């Protein structure tokens, strides 16, 4: 009896494993962030548009905000830019931009040409802030709650659908919890 069942059980186990492991929708490069639930790393950098102006996430303390990591070298960032502009128009939360592995002038030009969805854009000169946030590519988008904790990280270009499905409910929940 179990001579017959064992191969069958092995087959089912492998089928389940492959269905999960080979799922084309699963991004194998998207890693879970150990930062989730922890305090957002603080940073104090200069503004992309004005090197004499400081941008610090401490200024957004007490608010729900998002941090969007991007660079002009990043094709996917260009893809998501339209979505970010749309999100900015909704004025739901402040969007802090973090320019990663880039030149200040390139970033400036990009914002002047494509529009600026950011409440503030910080320029990560030497990649240290990115390391603190566990950034390993772009675009990456973090959601920080009113207590200053990272509650969500999205790795991939932002879209209106992702914003609706993943961000808005979490923002609403964070505000309820914080109120």
């Amino acid at each position, binding site marked *: 009896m179990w001579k017959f069942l064992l191969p069958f059980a092995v087959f089912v186990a492998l089928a389940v494993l492959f269905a999960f492991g080979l799922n084309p929708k699963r991004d194998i490069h998207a890693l879970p962030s*150990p930062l989730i639930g922890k305090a957002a790393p603080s940073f104090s950098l200069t503004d992309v548009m004005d090197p004499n102006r400081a941008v610090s996430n401490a200024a957004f303390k007490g608010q729900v905000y998002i941090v969007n990591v991007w660079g002009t070298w990043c094709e996917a960032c260009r893809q998501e830019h339209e979505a970010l502009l749309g999100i900015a128009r909704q004025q739901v939360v402040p969007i802090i931009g973090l320019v990663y592995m880039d030149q200040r002038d390139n970033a400036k030009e990009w914002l002047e040409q494509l529009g600026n969805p950011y409440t503030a854009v910080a320029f990560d000169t030497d*990649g*240290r802030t990115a390391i603190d946030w566990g950034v390993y590519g772009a675009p990456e988008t973090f959601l920080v709650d009113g207590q200053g904790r990272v509650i969500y990280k999205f790795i991939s270009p932002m879209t209106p659908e992702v914003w609706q499905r993943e961000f808005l409910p979490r923002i609403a929940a964070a505000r309820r919890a914080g109120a």
Partner: protein
Amino acid sequence: MNSKLPLLAVVLAVCLSAGVPARALDANGQLEDPVLQARYERITKDLRCLVCQNESIADSNVELASDLRRQVREMLSAGQSDDAIFDFMTDRYGEFVRFNPPLEPKTLLIWGAPFLVLVLGVVIIFRIVRRRSRMPLDDEPAPGPL
């Protein structure tokens, strides 16, 4: 015979050079203290470059890897322990950043799996051998007049 020599030379050159370039990635040169340099090499070999996920930061030439190497170098020079450096990395990038995850309850399966498979294999072989040894020896020539 002679016509194969140039090809052989090329193959040899490629094979021999494969082990060399790892150190050439560091623009800043070696750490002054050879002990620190040895630790630096060991640590950077155990840290995964998250951009090209099967390479270590010692071997990768992407910018993130060079930023992380700088971080390791600075922490070593500041007198930090290996554990402190690994903790720094796993706090930010998760356990996946290490090629050698520490032995913990949640990594038990990773470390135990090879032994599990070994035991399973031994059990299966043992059962097959025992069953066969009970079978009649039917491949021997049948006794009879020659």
